């Protein structure tokens, strides 16, 4: 009987936490707008093959560099125009949303998991292990992130997979530092001592007792990293080191469009606009998450 009531109150607490979170999150109108745009982007990516009016890789030889539909010379079947080899830009942008979401998810997952484990170990064990790990993190942070990613890609070979791995490696110290700081603060709390006295092993202490209480800053950092990952992957694509043509990755599309910018503004404008909107939406969401999850800012 008592068991049931405990479970119920747990669920109730969770519901309350969620509604409190939504209360603070939804007070930030920008965050809600960001969330809506982000969800639209997710839907676009999921249903890209159905939404896209054309196949993103098919070249319409009779329609090279057709301007957007509303401009003189535009054609209604190519709403945002076509690129130099006659591919429909709108379809490529729609397909490209899959790349950006995929990049964000993969990069953040690798950086988050790696960084959290490293940070947990450093913060939990302290001493020379901590010193060694944090110095290694300092070294990674000493390089401008894009440069280090570029050099890593040069070592691993250009391509989307390697670009994602490189970006994840470069981002991972941020998660490690955050986790370490949170662990060090939490470790002195009584509930941790209580769990230890009750006989909890190191693994249990690290992952089940301490980690759940360090989640808030990690979520905020994960959101910020998601948007930076989209940006950096696009930058690598632009520099020819990320996704390779003919992949409709937005940065790669921009790189291909570069030499045509003086003749056809649309080939360079729309892919960049897509990157900007995606990154902006995620950043708006990140601002809202920080407001909702950071108790220090909540009071002000």
């Amino acid at each position, binding site marked *: 009987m008592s068991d049931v009531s405990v479970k119920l109150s747990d669920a109730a607490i969770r519901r309350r936490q969620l509604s409190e979170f939504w209360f603070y999150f939804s007070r930030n109108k920008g965050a809600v707008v960001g969330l809506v745009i982000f969800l639209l982007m997710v839907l676009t990516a999921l249903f890209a093959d159905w939404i896209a009016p054309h196949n993103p890789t098919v070249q319409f030889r009779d329609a090279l560099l057709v301007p957007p539909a509303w401009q003189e010379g535009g054609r209604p079947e190519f709403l945002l125009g076509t690129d130099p080899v006659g591919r429909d830009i709108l379809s490529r942008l729609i397909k490209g949303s899959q790349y950006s979401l995929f990049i964000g998810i993969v990069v953040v997952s690798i950086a988050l998991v790696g960084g959290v484990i490293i940070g947990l170990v450093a913060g939990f064990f302290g001493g020379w292990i901590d010193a060694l790990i944090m110095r290694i993190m300092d*070294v990674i942070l000493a390089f401008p992130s894009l440069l280090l990613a570029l050099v890593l890609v040069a070592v691993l070979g250009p391509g989307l997979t390697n670009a994602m791995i490189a970006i994840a490696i470069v981002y991972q110290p941020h998660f490690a530092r955050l986790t370490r700081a949170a662990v060090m603060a939490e470790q002195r709390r009584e509930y941790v001592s209580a769990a230890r006295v009750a006989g909890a092993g190191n693994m249990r202490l690290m992952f089940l007792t301490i980690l759940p209480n360090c989640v808030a800053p990690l979520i905020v950092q994960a959101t910020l990293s998601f948007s930076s990952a989209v940006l950096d992957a696009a930058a690598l694509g632009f520099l020819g080191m990320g996704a390779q043509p003919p992949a409709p990755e937005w940065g790669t599309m921009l790189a291909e469009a570069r030499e045509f910018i003086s003749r056809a503004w649309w080939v360079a404008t729309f892919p960049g606009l897509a*990157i900007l909107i995606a990154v902006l939406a995620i950043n708006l969401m990140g601002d809202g998450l920080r407001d909702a999850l950071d108790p220090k800012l909540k009071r002000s």
Partner: protein
Amino acid sequence: MFRFILSRLLYLVPTFIGITIIAFSFPRFLEGDPVLLMAGERGVSPERHAELSAQLGYDQPLVVQYFDFLGRLLHGDLGTSLVTKKPVLAEFLSLFPATVELGLVAILLAVLLGVPIGVIAAIKRGSWFDQLSMTGALVGFSMPIFWWGLLLIIFFSGYLGWTPVSGRISLMYFFPNVTGFMLIDSLISGQDGAFVSALRHLILPSIVLATIPLAVIARQTRSAMLEVMSEDYVRTARAKGMPRRRVIGVHALRNALIPVVTTIGLQIGVLLAGAILTETIFSWPGIGKWMIDSISRRDYPVVQSGLLLIAGVVMVVNLLVDLTYGLINPRIRHR
């Protein structure tokens, strides 16, 4: 203060060693034999291969190679470029001023605009100015700057024809390289229009490079000001009838600037990463473009030493920021 400086310097030693290890190992992670890579497509005879290996020290144990690398590094020998056959350090030094000039103008632009925008937005919290500038800051913060650069070129260079598309100065002008800074050198040369030409070449790249730091600084200044303005001493200053201008300018801004200085320092890494993209778009002959070109030309000695030099620059700048911080905020020093 001396102890503070010393402790900061000691703190850098392990980081520096780590950086050298990364730079040292970089060519060794590349697929294939480094000697064959350097020899290029023509290949190399087995005797010549052994000779080159010995000359480059690749026949030694890794530890010996590393200390050899360190030794040469400390003597200022950073290897020679495979493409230009010039010493890497000399190339770096000849290109670095271009990046510094661009970076300085950009950071100046970012601070001179960002701090006032942040202060005004904080004072007029909730006003249309606040909302507009903070929306703008978020857009700037989210901007893919390589696209932003292209847009500016399309509009200002292509459509309006106001600014040049690439380079540091018009080819019409030629004058000796005194400081390496085009703005100063063109003034010294006394040639008509040279300075204006240099300035016109600098406008778009510096706007592009300044965009993200400007957004970050404006946001940071605003939130720091808001935090400080709710402090007791600001209320006291107001309560005793001090003019608003003085309260904001002297009491609030001065304290709000401490975190802003840190933010500005942290932008150096952002600037150098941004310089890679900005210099590529505008064909600006600085170290960012140099690194990109070297990576695509597989000029590995340049990539290796360039990596080391850039990380070194970031490290030194961070040290200077740390020291400045200690100077402004005595609490840090005595921790």
